[in-house]
């Protein structure tokens, strides 16, 4: 088994290196076995028994890369996938009500949400993202460093001035003004808030007991703004403001962002590599039954010395067994594509690719999907 997987990865990397997007027709150099079964993986061509249309709904954070994957997958197979970025909560609802073939969420489902879903389902990791603090301190151009304690204190409202010793002591040489801090948070429910508050709950007992973590929380203060753009806009125009946005948003809009001391005590800059590092070596629990295990798939406050501490996976939810074999085939193949060839698009779009352990886990899940009890993919069908 292990050997096959290793081979699979070597192959995938090779296939990805060979072309990705332009690889519409099977290239002889990537091996002949794949073309033998048009409905197997890796995905190379149309498959007659595959459903021609799928619907998905959920998180907005991964929507840009999902759209890219859907487009590429469509070029390869002709399958039309309609993904609606209505938010994680909406995605979970749509998946629960079976109005979408797959759901997408930035945060793991709660026990109550898991119970509400009839039939088993898998929570499959697809890519990774991160949240970074962005600020606007007059006359300060240096990158500010924050201890977890300082960050929690700022958002709790216990640190109210920029020249507070808790901030100043970590930033020697930067002259911080005696200015009030205005915190800016998301007013709409958001996976970004979920990750940020999950991190603060881990590093601050005070935060955990007073506020806690969820996609919407009872903020102790500050102003709320809608979406990443709203938060970034408010921070930009309010002197003394600090907020949090997705890393990809900060990168693509060239926003400055601070560094946060990670659990190993290091100031590692937020980058796609340091985000992937946060999941490096993490053993994921049984993603087919997450009840009571949700905390284990959280990768915030990673102990890896090179990790960015406010990182997260984003997930797709799929049924373990689907009565419609055509749909099951399409979903399985599409997900396989996402977690393999599709990963090569991640960095360009500002997402951190899955580390190998997480890809292995995703692969196992995809392979165990069944229709009427019989598997869709067999190990042999791919390599």
């Amino acid at each position, binding site marked *: 088994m292990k050997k096959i997987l290793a081979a699979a990865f070597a192959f995938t990397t090779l296939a990805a290196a060979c072309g990705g997007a332009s690889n519409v027709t099977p290239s002889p150099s990537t091996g002949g076995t794949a073309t033998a079964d048009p409905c197997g993986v890796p995905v190379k061509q149309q498959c007659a028994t595959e459903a021609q249309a799928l619907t998905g709904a959920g998180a907005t954070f991964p929507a840009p890369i999902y759209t890219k994957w859907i487009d590429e997958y469509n070029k390869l197979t002709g399958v039309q996938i309609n993904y609606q970025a*209505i*938010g*994680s*909560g*909406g995605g*979970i*609802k749509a998946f629960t009500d079976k109005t979408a073939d797959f759901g997408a969420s930035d945060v793991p489902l*709660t026990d*109550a*949400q898991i119970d509400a879903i009839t039939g088993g389902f898998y929570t499959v990791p697809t890519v990774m993202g991160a949240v970074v603090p962005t600020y606007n301190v007059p006359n300060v151009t240096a990158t500010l460093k924050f201890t977890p304690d300082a960050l929690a204190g700022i958002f709790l409202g216990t640190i109210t001035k920029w020249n507070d010793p808790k901030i100043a002591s970590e930033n020697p040489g930067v002259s911080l003004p005696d200015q*009030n801090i*205005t915190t800016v948070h998301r*007013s*709409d*429910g*958001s996976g970004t808030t979920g990750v940020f508050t999950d991190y603060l709950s881990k590093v601050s007992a005070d935060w955990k007991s007073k*506020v*806690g*973590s*969820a*996609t*919407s*929380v*009872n*903020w102790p*203060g*500050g*102003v*709320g*703004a*809608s979406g990443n753009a*709203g938060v970034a*806009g*408010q921070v930009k*125009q*309010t002197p003394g403001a600090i907020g949090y946005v997705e890393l990809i948003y900060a990168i693509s809009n060239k926003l400055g962002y601070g560094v946060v001391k990670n659990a190993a005590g290091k100031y590692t800059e937020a980058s796609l590599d340091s985000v992937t590092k946060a999941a490096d070596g993490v053993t994921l629990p049984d993603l087919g039954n997450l009840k009571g295990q949700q905390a284990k798939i959280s990768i915030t406050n990673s102990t890896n010395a090179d990790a960015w501490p406010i990182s997260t996976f984003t997930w797709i939810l799929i049924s373990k067994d689907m009565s419609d074999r055509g749909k099951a085939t399409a979903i399985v193949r599409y997900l396989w594509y996402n977690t393999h060839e599709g990963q090569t698009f991640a960095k360009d779009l500002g997402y951190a690719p899955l580390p190998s352990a997480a890809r292995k886990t995703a692969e196992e899940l995809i392979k165990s999907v069944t229709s009427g009890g019989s598997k869709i993919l067999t190990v042999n069908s791919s390599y």
Partner: protein
Amino acid sequence: MTRTFDRAFAAGVTALAMLVPLTLAGITVLLLIDAWPALTTFGLSYFTTTVWDPVKLVFGAAAYVYGTIVTTIVAVALATPIAVGAAIYLTEFAPRPLRAPVAFVIELLAFIPSIIYGLWGMFVLVPVMRSNIEPALQGTIGHVPLVGQLFSGTPVGLDLLSGGVVLAIMILPILMAVSREVLLAVPPTQREAMIGLGATRWEAVTRAVLPYARPGIIGGAVLGVGRAFGETMAVTMVVGNSSRDITGSLFVPGYTMASAIANQFVEADTELYFSAVVEVALVLLLVAVVVNSVARLLIRRAVADRPAGAVI
């Protein structure tokens, strides 16, 4: 044949007329069903507390109700004098060739999508409020006892006052249009009689024209209140979206019922949370009904008090 047709026609229009109240009833029933878990869990405390905590599942909507009412009052208080003043100018003083174009421009404001007001509010109004208007207000009437309370705290720009100002601009066209129509409908003989008695223009307007037009102006204000209550997008972008304790200051970030629903509906992922958000919608509907009824009563009284022959 014609009689049967008449009967069918009557039945048809009756059915059409019933559609609207039935829709309202249907919406109310649906909201009640979905809000039931929150209604039974929190009871009256839902209306008296301001803690809105989706993590601990404790919900109190008092801050939302307060924010909605405060922003609406600010909006109507700011917009009514401007609208009535502009309407008086346009009907009594403006050179005739100017009247229609100016009225048209003001009414154009009504066609601007609310997201544009929101963007303008966020990028233009809020910074001006924060660094100019709010400090100035604080420095002047901020020192007056009692009233000064309205202007206390650090000006952040994203607050109830900004929400009210954006709303005022948004309800201005409807208020102005209605006031203008009403003033135009005042019989010219009223003015002429006053002027003939040697009254000044001020006296003619305040003693003869405005009393006639009062019910209509109040009616316009009611329409404005209706719009201010339900307005979501633009207010959300400037009001601060933060439901803390009710302080009585206009300079604190606030929340309105409509923005609370818009912000939280999609991600309200537990039954009780969802239900609490739906209850906000139910309360919004009820408050709207109450405000409209009160306003209608006001109009009826104003109509009853009007001078004989006045227009509405």
